[in-house]
């Protein structure tokens, strides 16, 4: 599962150099492609709130696993006669929802911890980083399996587990960004002028690392999508009537030999979403970090 293989931290990736000034407004195809895909998914999800070709609840038992076009179903139907196009659209909602909650948890816990680790004395910082290292030894899937044992398998426990498991990567990235900012002249000046740490954190650090946090959100988002798909496959996510791409993939794989489309549609949707968020994140990173895109 890529989600769990993607190193939670990215050790040799570029140091967060100066993040304040996006380098020249250069044309950035990565960002553009990624942005378009992400926008497309968000738009699809928004539209699905108001309109889908068929209700996702509807099972057209006269058209089971039918090919595209049959019975007015644009992309065909699944094993239970549900409209695939509608399910893909509402699945985008679930994807966004899972991602937002998981990444939200990670960002809300990870960012302050990271800033703290970057601002406190080295000994404390070291201590916090050791904790982060231990935390890192509990990747998303492992965390989700523990949660499933203790709290039972549900989409909520899966999201929470993925979110908690994503905290340490935020801490690491934010901490290194914070250290860079803390050594900038204007912050040194502010400190000499006697501004207190919370004020510095809010006034100077947070705005300057915002870019980094957004990049990390995007990367974690891709991981969360993959994790949800894997958990659906293991039967540890939502129920059989909650539209989700992971569930579609799981239900479709049983008949991959006869009806490969049932796997291909959600597979492509998941792949596109992960690709989109990854490209978006990479694009942002390149934009903020001149070293990679500049060469």
């Amino acid at each position, binding site marked *: 599962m890529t989600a769990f293989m993607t*190193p939670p931290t990215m050790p040799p990736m570029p140091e967060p150099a100066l993040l304040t000034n996006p380098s020249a407004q250069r044309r950035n195809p990565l960002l553009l492609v990624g942005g378009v895909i992400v926008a497309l998914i968000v738009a699809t999800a928004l539209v699905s709130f108001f309109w889908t070709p068929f209700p996702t609840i509807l099972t057209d038992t006269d058209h089971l696993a039918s090919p595209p076009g049959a019975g007015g179903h644009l992309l065909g139907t699944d094993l239970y006669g549900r409209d695939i196009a509608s399910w893909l659209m509402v699945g985008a909602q679930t994807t966004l929802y899972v991602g937002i909650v998981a990444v939200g948890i990670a960002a809300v816990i990870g960012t302050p911890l990271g800033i703290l680790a970057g601002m406190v004395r080295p000994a404390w910082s070291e201590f916090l980083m050791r904790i982060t290292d231990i935390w890192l030894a509990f990747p998303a899937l492992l965390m989700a399996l523990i949660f499933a044992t203790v709290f039972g398998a549900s989409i909520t426990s899966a999201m929470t587990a993925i979110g908690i498991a994503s905290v340490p990567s935020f801490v690491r990235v934010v901490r290194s960004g914070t250290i860079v900012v803390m050594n900038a002249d204007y912050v040194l000046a502010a400190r000499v002028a006697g501004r207190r740490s919370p004020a510095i954190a809010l006034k100077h650090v947070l705005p300057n690392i915002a870019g980094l946090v957004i990049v990390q959100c995007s990367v974690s988002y891709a991981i969360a999508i993959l994790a949800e798909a894997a958990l659906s496959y293991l039967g540890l996510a939502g129920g059989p009537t909650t539209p989700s791409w992971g569930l579609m993939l799981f239900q479709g794989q049983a008949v991959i030999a006869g009806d490969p489309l049932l796997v291909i549609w959600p597979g492509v949707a998941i792949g596109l979403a992960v690709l989109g968020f990854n490209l978006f994140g990479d694009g942002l990173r390149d934009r903020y970090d001149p070293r990679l895109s500049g060469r």
Partner: protein
Amino acid sequence: MWWQIVRRLLIFLVSALVASIVVFVLLTVVGDPARTALGTNATPQALAEMRLRMGLDRPITTQYLSWIGGMAHGDFGTSFVTQLPIGPQIGERLLVTLWLVAGGMVVALVVALPLGTLAALWHRRVAGWILSGLSQLGIAVPAFLAGILLIAAFAVELGWLPSGSYVVPATDPIGFLKHMVLPWASLGLVQGAVLARYVRSAVLDEMGQDYLRTARAKGMTLWRAVIRHGLRNASIPVLTVLGVQMITVLIGAVVVERVFVIPGIGSFLVDSVARQDRLAVQGIVVTIVVISLAVSFLVDTAYALIDPRLRRR
């Protein structure tokens, strides 16, 4: 220098201890393991008996110490669900998973090194973009989907390879290899795509270094310069990632083992979760976590030994 190693070792030991406490607290203190073990046989009397048998009446610290003490000499306890000792099963299945992980890593390296290096060398050309795009696509494919597709193509359609299950290498080495090709590929290809990005960025980093410019100024082609000097230096960060990735491959094996019906530690974990066998889950999770920490310790130490910049400290 020695102090560095001792210090890291101490950190590793303390981390492992802390991790074991976290696992213990999550799985023993939260909820009621006796109730979980009994299911609905849980009459008040049966519950009391089971608590006694599981030692849940003792103070929490005593419970933890006896658990950790047992593990120190390989006794992970006996499952209250299956009545089987947990330690031997973990050992047996870990071996299977290690084969899977090792092969997956080899495939990943074989894919990532050329892909990443070429993508870096060609980074301003269309070919470089295409290679980067390929690795992006590889990352976007869930490993289990890759596995399902590989089975559909190479096992079911073409009939070249078995669709799953495990053969012990000692009894049938050829059969072992045949059975492992697809699992290795589905772990390794996706993983290779992830790794390729790090190789690319590491090589790009080195390409900007002065010594490479010097080498080129002296008339070496970029290719030769990169291969002679760049790759060696780039290998340090790549090795670090490799260490981190070994851990993530170990976790990723959970899903791949399910797709290919491989009796490794990942399928043991998923089965134990399904059986609500908390003691087994506890033992397996601690094993995986400690292995993760041990790998980072080894990588850190190796890094300290190899990297001259760190050695100087």
